[in-house]
């Protein structure tokens, strides 16, 4: 089912009653989640992503704006009438019920002629359990299961009513690293098998990048960028998005543009035709550095970490926003680097942002049409 958010805004009164201003948890959200896609709401804590999820589920009413599921306006519908499945961050499995009873719980709430018989309930619960591959654990209580298994029971419980929308709140945050990798693949598989429109909330950009069809990057209640993971990574609209996506993170230098040339710490490093003169923040992805003897960006090297295929160079530079920067170069290029290195910058891995607003400043890439890969 397609989800449409129109001018969706959620404001809370301030907890401190003396302060009259309101807390804006979500401000003027406008986006469409196409049918059958897996979408990640990504952002740091407090960015309003969980609020957005609660607005979609109906647990919280919006202050302004409307929500559509398909063509139906569901803004004023209570959660149970929206046909959503929600998986909570802590799973919220009922501890006194077995896995099977937990999965059957939503079905037992159905009243009237739609109410399935006991056998049908059981059948559907087992079917949902099979989908998440926990059909051998049906008689266990939540505390007798691992975090990953509990997670699956929670997903099965959310899916058993065959909702049009599946919502997952930080589905992986309570799992250990190994399970996290495994479970995110699971979520992807389940989503593909059921074809259900899925929205999940995460603060982990790797998680969001790896399994979603599109990511919505949020900060302070506002959407900053929406797009396919690779697009958002390659073409960030502002410094926040650039910084938030990518591990290792992007390196940010203070720089200046003069007559179409980018200067860092007084040295000309790159031709940036089309960029207006002025102070800028220069973002360079770790893979955007090329060590060459006549590179224009000289940096002292802290250490060189060999990671097999690639080599990671930790360097210093006084124009860097952080203490140290990190470049990832191929092993051949890194040969002979020990104390100092001179880098050339790849134009399509280098981004200019306004030093004041953090907004992206675009420039033409010489000899390569556009800066996009």
């Amino acid at each position, binding site marked *: 089912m397609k989800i449409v958010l129109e001018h969706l805004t959620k404001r809370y009164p301030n907890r401190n009653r003396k302060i009259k201003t309101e807390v804006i948890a979500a401000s003027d959200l406008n986006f469409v989640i196409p049918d059958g896609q897996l979408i990640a709401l990504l952002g740091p804590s407090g960015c309003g992503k969980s609020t957005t999820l609660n607005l979609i589920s109906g647990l919280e009413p919006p202050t302004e704006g409307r929500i559509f599921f398909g063509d139906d306006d569901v803004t004023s519908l209570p959660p149970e009438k929206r046909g959503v499945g929600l998986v909570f961050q802590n799973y919220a499995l009922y501890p006194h019920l077995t896995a099977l009873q937990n999965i059957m719980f939503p079905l037992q*709430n159905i009243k009237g002629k739609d109410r399935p018989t006991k056998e049908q309930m059981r059948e559907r619960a087992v079917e949902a359990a099979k989908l998440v591959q926990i059909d051998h654990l049906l008689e266990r209580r939540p505390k007798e299961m691992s975090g990953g298994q509990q997670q699956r029971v929670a997903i099965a419980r959310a899916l058993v009513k065959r909702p049009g929308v599946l919502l997952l709140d930080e589905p992986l945050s309570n799992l250990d690293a190994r399970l996290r990798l495994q479970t995110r693949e699971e979520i992807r598989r389940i989503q593909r098998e059921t074809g259900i429109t899925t929205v999940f909330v995460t603060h982990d950009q790797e998680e969001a990048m790896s399994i979603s069809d599109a990511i919505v990057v949020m900060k302070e209640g506002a959407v900053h960028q929406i797009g396919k993971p690779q697009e958002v990574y390659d073409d960030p609209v502002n410094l926040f998005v650039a910084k938030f996506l990518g591990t290792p993170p992007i390196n940010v230098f203070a720089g200046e543009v003069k007559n179409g040339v980018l200067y860092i710490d007084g040295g000309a490093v790159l031709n940036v035709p089309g960029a207006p003169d002025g102070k800028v923040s220069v973002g360079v992805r770790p893979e955007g550095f090329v060590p060459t003897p006549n590179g224009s960006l000289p940096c002292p090297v802290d250490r060189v970490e060999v990671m097999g295929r690639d080599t990671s160079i930790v360097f210093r530079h006084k124009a860097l926003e952080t203490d140290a920067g990190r470049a990832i170069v191929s092993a051949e290029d890194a040969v002979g680097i020990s104390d100092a290195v001179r880098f050339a910058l790849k134009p399509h891995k280098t981004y200019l942002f306004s030093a004041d607003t953090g907004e992206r400043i675009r420039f033409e890439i010489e000899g390569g049409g556009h800066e996009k890969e």
Partner: protein
Amino acid sequence: MKKNNLKAWLYLLPAIAFLGVFMVYPLFDVVIYAFEEGYNSASQSFFGVGGYNFSYVLHDPYFLQAVKNTLILVIITVPVSTGLALLISLGLNSIKPLKELYQTVFFLPYVTNTLAVGLVFMILFKKTAYSEGLVNLLINAFGGKSVDFIDGPYWAKMLVMCIYTVWIVMPFKVLILTGSLASVNQDYYNAAKIDGTSKLRTFTRITLPMISPMLFYLIITGFIGAFKAYSDAVALFGVDLNAAGMNTIVGYVYDMLYGNSGGYPSYASAAALILFAIVFTITVVNLRTRKRLQF
């Protein structure tokens, strides 16, 4: 290691000595007293060993009256007070404005002195030469006839006793239950809401099981507390409870020791052991049911 142990015992010594003298020794002594026949407290002598004390106590009409009173009190006040406390806690948990005020109001009886409460109940229920008592005035206002609640018929006295007990024990239960209701993770309720669970089903299938450990705790301590009732009866009906026909088992034990008809530690010990047996049995039954129902 050995030295550390010694140190630990040294630290524990005051507590152990105190508990030993005032708790453990009397515990064994009660059993000994209970089986010494014809014990004379003046000469500290007895005729023989046997079960006569139990037989005497069990044939004493005052004791049987006390057992009856106590059982009625237990059977009525424990479910009523726990049920009411649950209702009040649910109410307290669902209101927002003035929540703190109501919580304080409901907790006040807990910090109020038993005898002070007894005095208030006197004003409410006692008929004197000058006043019929507030409750009787109310009954009169609705066209009923005055009832002597304090010196009148048995059912009236029992009613006052039960109301008094419920009123006294409720605040603690309300406190515990409001706490445990508030500690149920809101996500469970959100999950239930998403699944369209009705209010009643949410209560019976989620809330009740979630707070059941606390509920069981309250029921068990409630049973034990009600079996030990004594001061409440004194506050309402004065020290001569046998005459009022409102004695409790603990009251009977006390009277056998220190009352006007007192001076019989053997009978008192026998009665105390019988009370122990009853409380023990009921607690075991309680714990068994709890285990079966626990998740």
